[in-house]
């Protein structure tokens, strides 16, 4: 299996899905001629033409909203939002229109739209480019939300998303685009939604993470091992649907759980994971399910972001606290 960076995996998956199904089309700001600000769509316009890889005006609500109509016309749109921060401009089209199209038409219409957007911090990007607001999308029933960390999962989940009959929000960890490199299956590769990935086995504490938080979780687990604490790391990767059974099983084994998220604490997706774990595995819990999270502040200026984003040190401290509880 070739080793690929996350961005390479995304680009090659887009290419192979466009190759496989000529109804697949890409639209967004700067996705065409320039190949995307992160080169996720580099070369696709030359290859598949300007009708299927379209540079749009700077209008997010129109990009998402038009994708609904394009789907009705028989296309399989894969719009890109340049940064998740700008999904806010399209929020009504996401939560009220795209998410509900099947429901509100009694399935007369569906919207097989896969929205891609980079998200999360750690690259000193300007304001509004680094927020991790997955929970806002997750609270919109009707949209599926996936957030891979490995390049292999990126290929598998993006392929599944594009082929899914329902709208899927595909969250790409901005920080991982070039940092993440791993073996990616060469041939067709799909990853079913709703199945977590055990990134590291362990017996004492279960750390649940997704997207860019998988890395500090793994680093902390490594460090904890040195202190004799055996930590398991779970990469949710599929946030909606959520692998409730998987969560129960993993946490039941250790009786101690920590959820790590980059987003602000209050009403972040970590709170859902905590609530679910304690509902499902209460009898097994030997300690409160803890959260290691971004803080309840707006995303800070770039020079402060390393202090804001949870790192291995913070996760490790919580691992010790939870293990000793």
């Amino acid at each position, binding site marked *: 299996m070739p080793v690929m960076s996350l961005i390479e995996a995304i680009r090659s998956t887009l290419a192979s899905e466009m190759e496989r199904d000529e109804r697949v*089309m890409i639209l967004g700001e700067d996705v065409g001629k320039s190949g995307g600000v992160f080169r996720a769509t580099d070369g696709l316009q030359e290859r598949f033409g300007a*009708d299927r890889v379209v540079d*749009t*005006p700077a*209008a997010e*609500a*129109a990009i*998402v*909203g*038009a*994708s*609904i*109509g*394009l*789907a*009705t*016309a*028989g*296309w399989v*749109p894969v719009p890109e939002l340049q940064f998740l921060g700008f999904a806010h401009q399209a929020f*009504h*089209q996401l939560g*009220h*229109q795209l998410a509900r199209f*099947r*429901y*509100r*038409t*009694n*399935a*007369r*219409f*569906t919207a097989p739209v896969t929205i891609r957007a980079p998200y999360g911090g750690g690259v000193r990007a300007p304001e509004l480019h680094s927020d991790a607001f997955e929970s806002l999308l997750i609270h919109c*029933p*009707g949209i*599926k939300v996936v957030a891979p960390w490995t390049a292999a999962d990126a290929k598998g989940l993006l392929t599944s998303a594009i082929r*899914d*009959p*329902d709208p899927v929000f595909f969250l790409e960890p901005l920080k991982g685009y070039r940092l993440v490199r791993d073996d990616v299956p060469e041939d067709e590769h799909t990853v079913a*939604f*709703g199945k977590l990935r055990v990134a590291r086995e362990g017996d004492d504490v279960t750390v649940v993470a997704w997207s860019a938080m998988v890395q500090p979780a793994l680093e902390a687990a490594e460090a904890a091992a040195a202190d004799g604490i055996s930590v398991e790391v779970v990469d949710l990767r599929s946030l*909606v*649907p*959520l692998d*409730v*059974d998987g969560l129960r099983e993993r946490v039941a084994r250790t009786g101690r759980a920590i959820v790590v998220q980059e987003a602000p604490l209050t009403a972040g997706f970590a709170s859902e994971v905590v609530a679910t774990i304690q509902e499902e595995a209460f009898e097994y819990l030997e300690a409160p399910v803890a959260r290691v999270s971004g803080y309840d502040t707006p995303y800070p200026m770039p020079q402060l972001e390393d202090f804001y984003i949870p790192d291995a040190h913070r996760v490790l401290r919580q691992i010790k606290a939870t293990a000793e509880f």
Partner: protein
Amino acid sequence: MQLFQILNESGELVGEPPKLDDSVLVDMLRLMLLGRRIDHKAISLQRRGKLGTYAPLSGQEAASVGSVFALDRETDWVVPQYREQLAMLHHGLALSTYLLQRMGHPQGSELPKDGTLYPQQVALGAHLPHAVGLAWGLKLRGDPGVVIAYFGDGASSEGDFHESCNLAGVQKAPVIFCCQNNGWAISVPWSQQSAAESVALRAPGYGMAGLAVDGNDALAMYAATADAKRRAQAGEGPTLIEAVCTRLGAHTTADDPTRYVPPDVAETAKKRDPIIRLRAYMIGKGIWSEELDQEAERWCDAEIDRAVEEFDATPKPDPASLFDNVYAAEDPRLRRQREEFIADRESR
């Protein structure tokens, strides 16, 4: 602002009428009359608690019917806001389904299978990007269909209107933006909705054609829409049609216009009645008569009675159906919620 007109207020020709078979004109007037009757019936049903909030279309019959008649139901799409009962009926929606929709019955969401009709849209202007994507997508596939999107003067203030018009212009999408400017957004008059004299003045800002039409003139609406369709199919892109019309009734049954509509405005509005105008023209043309009035009235009542019967005969919805159609395949968490729901219902 000079409005494009073919029939003046007295129903006299002041422009070149579109070439239409007399039978088509008759069908148009009958549909307009049906709309007016539906309003009366629906309002009384609502008063008796049999219907939810209802948005009457009285005064806007020509704007809806004149435009939609210029389209082909087989190939052209209708993307409505919430006051286009007649355009939806013309595009195959069952009247009983429409009534069920107003009653909040899930069956009211049923749309003609493989029809070319979009659901009504409650959020102002939120359907406009859909219409643009649909038209753009049809064009990309070489499908000859065009799309008409209906919306009001209030909706023209939403950001979605702007983003949609601009994208449609760039893609030369075969879409017709039909703004029914009835002068009111609930209680807000056009003069407070915008400083522009006309919505049509926005078209040049998107590089598209625009026209302000007398929306009480069914023939002018037909001609303007037919021309917009021709342009769309010729690859000349979208058109913004402003149908300057009048809202004869309340915004909805929940609204009391006497709180904000000056009496004189209400009076002059009556004079502009689009039905009176088309009828006068057709009588002059010798293709309409009092007998036809009565015949049409009987037909309207029959249509409505049948619909109301179906409406009354529709069983209450299955409570658990609230879990249907969230996704193509139900995910486990939702399935569990459905099961808990059923268990809870049985425990009552």
